[in-house]
């Protein structure tokens, strides 16, 4: 659990957000239950809540800029992130009170929905930032991905070398297993981390699934007892251990791709939706005054 951005400076921004939330509720309640003018964005309280909301959205969007300006001295990025989380959460209350929970098929509700999508994708981002880094670290054990890939490359080369000493049928199978190994892929393949590796079995036909190198490992272990020569048995054993190691590394890499993908994916929604929200916010404000 990495909660530094949540309890930064003893929940300073959490308290700020709480105060802002309470202030917004008080403002909303002060609209009263007048039948002459039901609470909404058109009362003076509604305008105040709307202005607070719009300024919050603008400020929250600036986190992306602050993150990139490494030389900036305007607070630490961690402090900014902490404020971003808490003030972003309270924005949900501010905006809902601003519109008095009145929705319709219009650009105003579009802005609200986009805002909710941004905030909820942010909640998801917060969840993965809190929980996933530990899992990434424990999965990849002190080495980076490039190191694991390098080992895999060497492993494959060794397999090719060793397999050269075996019969053509097994060699064909081994090489096809190397060639038809699948890692990564498109978005969903990266995130699902399903092993789509294949192997070409002797005798032609369509390649079959070799998930977790199981077909190869099974074939090799079945053939070891039947080895007629000492050298053949040695070759088979070495291939078996090489494929065992290969299985471990591939599995680990798949998990790594999946976890890193999940860590980054939410931002691919959070950021573009933020820009859509900024556009919708502009239209919301303009349109309200065009047809005042």
């Amino acid at each position, binding site marked *: 659990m990495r909660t530094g951005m949540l309890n930064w400076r003893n929940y300073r921004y959490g308290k700020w957000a709480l105060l802002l939330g309470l202030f917004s509720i008080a403002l909303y309640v002060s609209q009263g239950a007048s039948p002459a003018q039901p609470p909404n964005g058109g009362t003076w309280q509604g305008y105040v809540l709307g202005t607070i909301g719009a300024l919050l959205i603008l400020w929250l969007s600036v986190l992306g800029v602050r993150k990139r300006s490494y030389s900036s001295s305007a607070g630490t990025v961690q402090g900014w992130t902490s404020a971003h989380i808490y003030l972003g959460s309270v924005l949900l209350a501010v905006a809902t009170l601003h519109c008095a929970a009145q929705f319709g098929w219009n*650009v105003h509700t579009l802005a609200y929905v986009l805002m909710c999508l941004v905030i909820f994708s942010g909640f998801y981002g917060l969840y993965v930032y809190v929980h996933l880094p530990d899992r990434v670290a424990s999965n990849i054990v002190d080495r980076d991905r490039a190191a694991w890939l390098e080992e895999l490359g060497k492993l494959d080369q060794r397999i090719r070398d060793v397999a050269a000493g075996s019969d053509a049928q097994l060699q064909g199978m081994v090489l096809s297993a190397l060639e038809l190994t699948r*890692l990564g892929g498109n978005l969903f393949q990266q995130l699902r981390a399903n092993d789509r590796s294949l192997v070409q079995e002797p005798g032609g036909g369509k390649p079959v699934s070799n998930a977790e190198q199981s077909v190869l490992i099974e074939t090799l272990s079945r053939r070891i007892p039947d080895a007629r020569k000492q050298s053949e048995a040695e070759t088979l054993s070495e291939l078996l251990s090489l494929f065992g190691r290969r299985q471990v590394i591939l599995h680990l890499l798949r998990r790594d791709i999946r976890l890193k993908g999940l860590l980054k994916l939410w931002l691919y929604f959070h950021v573009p939706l933020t820009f859509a929200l900024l556009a919708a916010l502009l239209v919301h404000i303009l349109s309200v005054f065009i047809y005042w």
Partner: protein
Amino acid sequence: MHFLVRKQTGRGSAEALETEYEGNRLTLGGAEGAMVQLPGLPGVVEITPKGADGASLRARGFRFELDGREVSKADLQQGVALELPGHRLELIAPPAGFDLALRLEATATAAVNYGGALELEQVIWSRRRSSWLLALLVLVLCLVVPAVVLFEPELGARLRSLPLPDDGMWSSGPLVAAHRTTGIGDDCQACHTEPFKMVQDEACLVCHREVNEHVDVTVHPAQHFSGERCASCHREHNEPQALVRRDRGLCVDCHAQPADWPDAEGMEAVSGFTEAAHPEFRLALLTPRGPGGVHGWQVDRVRALPETQRERSNLKFTHAVHMDVDKVQDKLSSEGLECASCHTLKDDGEHFEPVTMDAHCRSCHGLNFDSFEPELELPHGDLRAATVAMEAHFIREFTDPVLRQERAAKKPRRVPGKRDAAGSCEGSGLECGRREAMSEAGFQFAETGCVTCHEVTETGMQSIHDRWYVEPIKVTGDWYPHSSFDHSSHLSLAREQGRNVCETCHDASASDQAADILIPGRENCLGCHADNERVSAVDCVSCHVYHEAGATPALQARGHDTAYEPAGSGGE
């Protein structure tokens, strides 16, 4: 066709794996449908035999380098190798039974290539790109396209008729049902005439031409109302809908503090509907101008208990007698009279049709004036017509010899309370007729007849036409002109009161003078409707309206802009 693919294996050794394929053409690639699986190839390669020992190659999804150029097609010849990404490919002489043979050799180094991207960035649109796209999409669909209606009304109208985004998406909430009509509900600019300007009164008055201001601006200081737009009170696009204010604030915001309105004469503090919060009702008393109302009537507003006031209608009448079944019965049914025998509610549910001599009184109080011809009656409501009718009748009776003879022979019908007319007379027809007319007139105006219900003054003049003056009757039709009341909804009281429901509020049986004011005052309403009664509390607007009937028409007061004149009309 039969294909043979020989894959070179190992490192430089001559070992090879041969695989046979069958089909129209040979496909190679990383995709799952490819016959020959070649991981790392960015697309699919199709090879079709061509000529005796050649073949054509076509790459789909990628281009490769051939002689320094990027191409997607190439011809293959035996003995000439082609370099594809990660693989070398060469046609070889097909063994017997094969149409085409191919040798494949992996050229990729030990670098791992498993046919898939390992980073998210490689397979998803960049954040910058999707940010731009989404933001522009929102701007175009929600701002640029709808804004067309502001600049190109005709194009805008077409836009609205098509399932395309239009300015309707700028609406902040639903319109009330009455405004959801063609020409308003589908055209924002029917009301929002100018961008960035609040809805102007002229837009409302295009349709609501009959609406009045709150007061008569020629009497009351109009400047107090000049800053208030129609939309200051009538707020559209609200949820819940609140187009018409019914809240107490509509009235008491101003009326609670009369001191703030020094110009408003007679304004009393109102802050609710209790004895303390609402003043006594103001009666509209008709006061005759000149003796007997000879110069007409004026309405005086008097804030007082009704029972302390007298109505000066010049009518002689008593409800007590007419409602006593022993004294007055319905001619047809012989039952006692009911309120509804004379009083008919108007369609407004508040006021009553006037009680008239012809409709309600004449059946009992007939105006017959000659006991020899009892079916003849005087006209009502016109003094001169009545005296002329009497004179003409009697002159004719005594001048025409045949009539005079018949009359002398006839026996008059005696009617209690009526004068016995003369059957014969000494003198000329004119003299006799005039004498008889004068006698009858004296009886009608001074003893019974007109004088039963009317105040009659004797002038002392000689002429039959001028000797008596019947004072006109003016009965109050609207006691509380600044409030409304619904009699029909109060008939629910009949459940408890039965036929006497009217007397719950109007104590008519006990009234023995026409001058009694039977209209109830504030106390009567407070019994059920006071704020603190919690039985049936009412709002100000349950009884009062903001746009008073007698106030200045808004169209006149608010400087009607001719630009809003509907085409073809000629103005006010």
